[in-house]
């Protein structure tokens, strides 16, 4: 029995083997994601259909408000496609952010009774939202078929923008998850951010509607870059990426992720004590 692993526990020690541990616990990560998916679709009557109905109805409302009432221009693209190309990343972000933000609290029992790298919990929550995202993607395909709209080569750059959305959701999720454990107000802030974000992000309209001199400022909202990227890749045609804004958004997304991981790691060791 001499080949046994030796584990040393000391204050501040977890730091050193953290990433190795994260890899060792990957199976738990799959299982948690699998559990959440399974539970979600077991508890709801219409199951998977939820991932379709919600974005579809939201799209109809947006098309009605922004296209029919506000009569905003659509750059020659069917307005439903314009809206849906933005709604996809936004809903992914909003769901992932909410789920990840609440994930530690809803797994409080687990955290206070078992050791594992806590990063697994919000990460698996983001994965579950990603599945929803893929399912709602079906609607977009349906819309394209309905309107006989064919995307061009740019659609192949979509995975890049999906990963940016992923990073944004993960980064913001880590921040809120960690804050949520410590501060009880955060759970009230989450729905507010999601609701507020929907209005300050170019979901119902194209960001070309924003006056030129404000666009860089507008891109401080990192979801602007993500959504513009999605539109650029999906809608194609004469939509242009506003590069300074896009790069600013991209930079901020990365900052959120890096600081999110940092803050999460820093507070993680006290989770079990305060949760």
């Amino acid at each position, binding site marked *: *029995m001499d080949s*046994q*692993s*030796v*584990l*040393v*526990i*000391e*204050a*501040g*020690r*977890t730091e050193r083997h953290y990433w190795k541990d994260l890899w060792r616990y990957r*199976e*738990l990560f799959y*299982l948690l994601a699998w*559990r959440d998916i*399974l*539970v979600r679709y*077991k*508890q709801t009557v219409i199951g998977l259909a939820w991932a379709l109905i919600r974005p579809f109805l939201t799209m109809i409302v947006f098309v009605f408000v922004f296209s029919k009432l506000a009569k905003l221009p659509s750059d020659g693209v069917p307005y439903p496609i314009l809206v849906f190309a933005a709604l996809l990343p936004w809903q992914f972000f909003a769901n992932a952010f909410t789920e990840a933000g609440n994930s530690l609290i809803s797994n409080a*029992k*687990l*955290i*206070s*009774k*078992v*050791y*594992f790298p806590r990063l697994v919990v919000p990460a698996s929550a983001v994965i579950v939202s990603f599945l929803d995202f893929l399912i709602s993607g079906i609607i977009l395909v349906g819309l394209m078929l309905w309107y006989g709209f064919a995307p061009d080569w740019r659609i192949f750059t979509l995975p890049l923008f999906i990963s940016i959305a992923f990073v944004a959701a993960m980064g913001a999720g880590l921040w809120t998850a960690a*804050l949520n454990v*410590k*501060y*009880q*107000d*955060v759970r009230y802030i989450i729905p507010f951010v999601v609701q507020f974000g929907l209005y300050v992000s170019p979901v119902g309209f194209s960001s070309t509607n924003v006056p030129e001199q404000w666009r860089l400022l507008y891109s401080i909202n990192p979801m602007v870059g993500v959504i513009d990227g999605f539109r650029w890749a999906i809608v194609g045609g004469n939509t242009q990426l506003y590069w300074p804004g896009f790069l600013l958004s991209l930079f901020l997304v990365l900052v959120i992720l890096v600081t999110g991981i940092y803050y999460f790691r820093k507070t993680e*060791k*006290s989770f*079990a*004590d*305060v949760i």
Partner: protein
Amino acid sequence: MSTAIAIENLSKKYIIGHQKRERYFALRDVLANGVKQFTHKLIHPFSAPENDPTHEEFWALKDINLDIMQGDRVGIIGRNGAGKSTLLKVLSRITEPSSGRITIKGRVASLLEVGTGFHPELTGRENIFLNGAILGMSKVEIKKKFDEIVAFAEVEKFLDTPVKRYSSGMYVRLSFAVAAHLEPEILIVDEVLAVGDAQFQKKCLGKMDEARREGRTILFVSHNMGVISQLCSTCVWLDKGEIRDIGQTGSVVNSYMLSGISDLSGEMTFPDDSGKIVQLKKISMLDREGNSAQKFDCDNPINIKFDIQVRRQLPGLYGYIGIFKPDGTQVLVSDSFDASTVNPLDSLPVGMNTFSVTVPPRTLGHGDYMIHFSMASPSADNFLVDVPGIVCGFSLDDFASKRGNQRAGFFSILLPWHKLEN
């Protein structure tokens, strides 16, 4: 034999708020405090920063040194709040120590709760995999052990039923079964055997005994001195975060129990703990006149009166009282199902509820006793609802009978003697 766990100068500090166990800080308080301190600094720029009077350091573990050899079975005993659970949590890496160092050789599995991570919506089969992974088993390992686990838990027929439809017994059996099939070199177990029926408890003890024979190191926390004595060779007695005694189980358990009597009073109250759905707030021993007492005589009833704070109505709630001798022998057990056909604790209304349990005259023999109190419900998350443990102590004298305090045995019942006609 080599050392399996070496603990050196281990300490764990908690900062506690004085607003009794608030579970969260509010962001708004933090901001408000920050502003207060800032303005204080503006007004008194050279004064030392104020000590925050609402927060206090609390040492849950203080300078613990302990070596556990491979194959040792070590029991950890102590009063509530003595640091037992904190020690297990630090050893299981759930929380970090504040200082000190632990070196562990070998794979560790900790079982701090029955059914950690069980999801009520998932089936028995799904939960076995989930729980196994949470406890640190690989998928391959679980697959290999799957049939054994199912057989141990006796749930073959319900494998594809969501566990929310399981009876509490099945639930506990399944969750313990998964844990029992871990094959770690070091097994850390918190008071989990307190649940489940007697037959199953026996089975679990058998499983732990098996682990012992296979030469595994076991760390075991329990309030049940009988189980500790049966299972553990060495015993550590924690008191207020420090090791008070360590050595052969028999002698440590004895001195712990004896200290219990002198430390225990006839009355105990508990601070609010909003984390508990139902909580014992106060328990006291009363004599015939209703006065608080600790000395009784065999010819008078002993009344145990207790107040239970109910924060949320809990179906299936029941209470459990055990009366122990100082050496850990359990003399008498009563649960609230004894009351009559209805269990008076079932679905108590929210608020304070008061009960009384009476030990009739001429039941227990003279001597010192301790009372263990707990509450459980099959509909609670972890079955156990509130386990204050040993709460009161009392002594009994036999004045009236001729043999009096010379009477040996457990009972003071006076048996009728008849001369039969022949």
